[in-house]
């Protein structure tokens, strides 16, 4: 045991920080202070800049466009991106699909699909959940029937993040109606412009559209778009979900929230001076900070643990559970820092030309998006395995109950 930080790690963080400071365009950086869903064109511009530096997918294998950074270095990179309020990258392509194609895709699939992801040219959506198959994916119904060299896909996906942006979707589909539930599932790449694909936006309580329903009606998908072996989709999905053991802690996001809260509470006036100086608020922030520090050191423990390390794995399972709770708490505290205007809806349109309308008088970029974020984060303990499911996993797999 040794908790000193190696010199190279310091140097690496400096290198990353200096690059981002120099490379992040000022207008994107300003909009990043809004701290809400990033605009697609901002994300794309930024991904091209990162890609030029070779840093748009550090966690991919180096020969496929990634890096050979250690888990700690990758964490620091993400941490610095959050700190600089850079746009949040296309997670579906980079973090979810990418590693699967790297590991199980054919060389042709890798050559065709990976470069546009790295460069932000093409965007992906994840088509897993269905109306009656949420946490319980094995019961999914969307079917893909072979017809010559094509699959014919029919069915419906829901809670499809970013599908309104997406050019492509990777979907779990049932290719074998007879096999046991999990064995009949395959992993298929589908061009969203194929005839028969339609989408319906789902508006959520933060006033935004990030989720969608996607319908498939006799959609013809070339057999070449099957990833890996037919019937093995389930194992690729598990691989994908297990790939990043610390991302679900969203700890860098929450650290960025804390800086935002401190900023807003320093600006906020009260009869007794700035809000940050009032005991009630300062104490809430101090407690949140302490909890985030504990979370971050839990992340560090996992980053330094080898895959097979029992202690490391047992910590990994709590990162989502506690990280999502803190993530919502932070957003609620940020809204509280806005005082009266913390209950104001501040809709930011996702389209490029629209600007916020009917805003309350907000004097600081950081304040815009805060109240919507507080609503959006209500979902943090729901998606990606609800807290109730996480607790059961911890009880059964770690405590052996």
């Amino acid at each position, binding site marked *: 045991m040794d908790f000193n930080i190696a010199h190279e790690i310091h140097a690496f963080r400096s290198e990353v920080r200096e690059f981002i400071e120099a490379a992040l365009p000022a207008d994107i950086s300003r909009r990043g202070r809004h701290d809400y869903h990033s605009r697609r064109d901002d994300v794309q511009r930024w991904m091209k800049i990162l890609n030029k530096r070779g840093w748009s997918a550090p966690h991919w294998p180096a020969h496929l466009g990634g890096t050979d950074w250690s888990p700690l270095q990758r964490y620091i990179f993400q941490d610095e991106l959050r700190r600089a309020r850079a746009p949040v990258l296309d997670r579906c392509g980079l973090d979810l699909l990418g590693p699967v194609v790297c590991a199980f895709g054919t060389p042709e699939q890798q050559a065709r699909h990976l470069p546009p992801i790295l460069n932000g040219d093409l965007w992906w959506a994840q088509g897993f*959940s269905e109306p009656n198959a*949420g*946490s*319980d994916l094995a019961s999914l119904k969307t079917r893909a029937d072979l017809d010559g060299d094509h699959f014919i896909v029919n069915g419906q996906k829901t*809670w499809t993040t970013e599908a309104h942006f997406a050019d492509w979707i990777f979907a779990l589909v049932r290719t074998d109606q007879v096999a046991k539930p999990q064995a009949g599932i395959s992993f298929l790449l589908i061009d969203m412009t194929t005839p028969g694909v339609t989408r319906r936006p*789902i*508006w*959520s*309580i933060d*006033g935004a559209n990030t*989720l969608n329903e996607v319908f498939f009606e006799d959609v013809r998908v070339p057999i070449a778009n099957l990833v890996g072996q037919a019937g093995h989709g389930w194992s690729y999905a598990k691989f994908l979900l297990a790939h990043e053991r610390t991302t679900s802690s969203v700890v860098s996001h929450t650290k960025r929230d804390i800086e935002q809260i401190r900023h807003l509470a320093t600006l*906020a*006036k*009260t*009869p*007794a001076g700035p*809000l940050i100086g*009032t005991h*009630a*608020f300062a104490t*809430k922030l101090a407690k949140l900070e302490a909890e985030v520090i504990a979370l971050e050191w839990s992340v560090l423990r996992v980053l330094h643990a080898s895959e097979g390390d029992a202690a490391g794995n047992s910590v990994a399972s709590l990162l989502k559970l506690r990280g999502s709770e803190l993530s*919502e708490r932070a957003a609620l505290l940020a*809204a*509280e820092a806005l*005082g*009266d*205007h*913390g*209950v*104001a*809806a*501040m809709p930011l349109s996702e389209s490029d030309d629209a600007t916020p309308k*009917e*805003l*309350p*008088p907000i004097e600081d970029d950081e304040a815009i998006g805060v*109240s*919507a974020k*507080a*609503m959006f984060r*209500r*979902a943090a*303990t*729901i*998606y990606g395995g*609800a*807290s*109730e499911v996480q*607790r059961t996993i911890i009880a059964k797999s770690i405590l052996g109950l």
Partner: protein
Amino acid sequence: MDFTLTAEQQALADSVHRFYEREYSFESRKRRLASADGFSRDLWRAIADLGWIGAALSEEDGGFGGGPIGNALIMEGFGRALVLEPFLSTAILSLQTLAHAPCSAVRDRLLEDIVAGKVLVALAHGETAANGDAEYVEAVAARRGAGWTLQGHKSLVLGSPSADVLLVTAKAEAGIGLFLVDPAAPNVRVQAYKTLDGCRVGDVWLDDVVAEEALARPGSGLAPVLRGLDHALVGVCAEAVGAMSAALTLTRDYVKLRRQFGAALSDFQAVQHRMADMLVELELSRSILYQGIAGLASPNEQRIRAISAMKAITSSAAMFVGRNAVQLHGAIGMTEDYAIGHYYRRLFVIAHLFGNESAHLDRIVRTPATFWPAVS
């Protein structure tokens, strides 16, 4: 003391129930929310015709003498159905402020017009720097001839985008006064926006605005506003009880229906226990609402503590019940198309309105009193 409704109270509650059952389908509410006002002026007139606006007011002020319990019954029902009409801002906050203001011809006429549903009034009192301190006012009033000029910025003014009349607090040397302002007058700017639940509110700027009349002269304007706020706090807490109750019912129905991993959600002990805790929060909120209503009649410090205890408990309960109602619904609870998300957003707004939990705990701390409450 009696916790059962009298025949009259029961009739009022039933009438409120019939009103929202008739008028407040999910779809019609959605349409109303999307309209320019964010509510229906026709329904407001209907509410006036039903006699609810003046329900709480004394008969000498043109009301029906139902007292705060009448308002609480209405607001609880409105909370259940997420009613949008400006009852809180006009019929409670503004009306009670006026009812506690010094008598004058203007005041009496305004009371009458409000009760008749003819005018919508908004109280422009809160400011961004108040941080939940109801007595804090920075806006300034200066003498000009027989009248006054006002200068200041009022935030989160409920009902202001649709108001015909603004009641504005501002400070002169003698203290805080209460002034009548026409929102269409020169140098008045109402910047409308929506709260998270979709309701329209506004910030109000007064830049050298001429006010002919002082409803209450500097030094005597704060007291009626504080009484108006007391009544409004009881009103939102009653609304919260209604909204929590509806949210709990929706959630119960959902978890009994929805199946996961081969069982109804309601079969999971974690779901059962969470819902039990939600029920406890709801019932404690109802209990402390009654305590708050009783406290309205108490002398100053006792009243402040009673009202703030009520709001602190209710703010915390509203967040707990609202957040967990969405949690137990899962992803569907996050969508516009499902009612539960609307309840959460309203409960979130209520939790923060007129001071959040921290602000009211602070107010209790600042207001010492002997403890041994209830029936003493």
